[in-house]
């Protein structure tokens, strides 16, 4: 028996315990596409693509500063919430379907304990953040909504990283940082949102894809 055998064995045990309890069915390509989706959606709202031609001529900055007729502002707000909800729902559906496919391929049931722990640790901060954002909207503090989504999303990522990819932790810290910076630039919050939910997901998706999926 070689002298380093016990160390090798303990290393193997630790690796397998960690690998078998972490949720790793996230598809990198799916994350990449949700990033693209977020960028398209947010750009539509921020740059008024498609809306400027309508009679409803309210820009994002106008909404934040509440500079306009209340009904027009309310319409713009509804559009914004509609687009954001569409992005969120389609992103979740894309992630779920690809995770299901990936788990089938690897013979690992999707609904195991690591999956439910990941979901729980991600969605508790997200739900709290969602309710908080609705309260912000209710109080007409629209400018803080985009930074708040980034901050709560960052918290969710950091807590879920313990049960899933380690890289989620760094993504979480970055989203937190973005959220706080965005709080200083109210009115440009959506630009930070495009970075945090768009560009970050595109890079993160590619990282996961090339580091784990392509093996």
């Amino acid at each position: 028996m070689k002298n380093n055998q016990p160390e090798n064995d303990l290393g193997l045990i630790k690796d397998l315990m960690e690998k078998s309890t972490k949720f790793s069915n996230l598809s990198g390509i799916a994350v990449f596409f949700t990033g693209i989706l977020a960028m398209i959606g947010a750009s539509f709202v921020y740059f008024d693509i498609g809306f400027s031609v309508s009679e409803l001529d309210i820009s994002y900055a106008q909404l934040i500063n509440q500079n306009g007729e209340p009904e027009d502002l309310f319409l713009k707000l509804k559009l914004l919430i509609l687009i954001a909800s569409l992005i969120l729902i389609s992103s979740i559906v894309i992630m779920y379907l690809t995770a299901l496919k990936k788990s089938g391929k690897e013979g690992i049931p999707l609904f195991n304990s690591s999956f439910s722990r990941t979901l729980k640790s991600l969605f508790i901060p997200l739900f709290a953040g969602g309710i908080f954002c609705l309260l912000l909207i209710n109080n007409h503090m629209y400018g803080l909504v985009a930074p708040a989504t980034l901050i709560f999303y960052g918290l969710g990522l950091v807590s879920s990283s313990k049960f899933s990819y380690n890289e989620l932790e760094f993504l979480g810290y970055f989203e937190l940082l973005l959220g706080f910076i965005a709080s200083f630039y109210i009115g440009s919050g959506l630009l930070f949102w495009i970075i945090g939910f768009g560009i970050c997901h595109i890079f993160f998706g590619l990282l996961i894809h090339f580091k784990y999926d392509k093996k």
Partner: protein
Amino acid sequence: MEGYGLLNKAFDSRVRLGLMSILSVNEWVSYKEIKNLLELTDGNLASHIHALEKINFIEIKKQFIGKKPLTTYRVTNIGKNAFKEHISGLEKLINN
């Protein structure tokens, strides 16, 4: 070297050691899942599973999900204790 006394011969093979590592931190785990985690081929794993089952370290559950058969495995209390002892043996060997 008192650590050697705690080591279990059943875990001499790295496949069996890996198998126990996975089962000790999970509930029922499927054959395919174990195979993928250990990066093994079919025949290789089956014999090791059989060996551990024979000494009552793991138990097997066979069921049907729809029309597909599904075999899952779980570590028994005997297996859990033996594995714990083996790990403490390994740790003692390193510390000595």
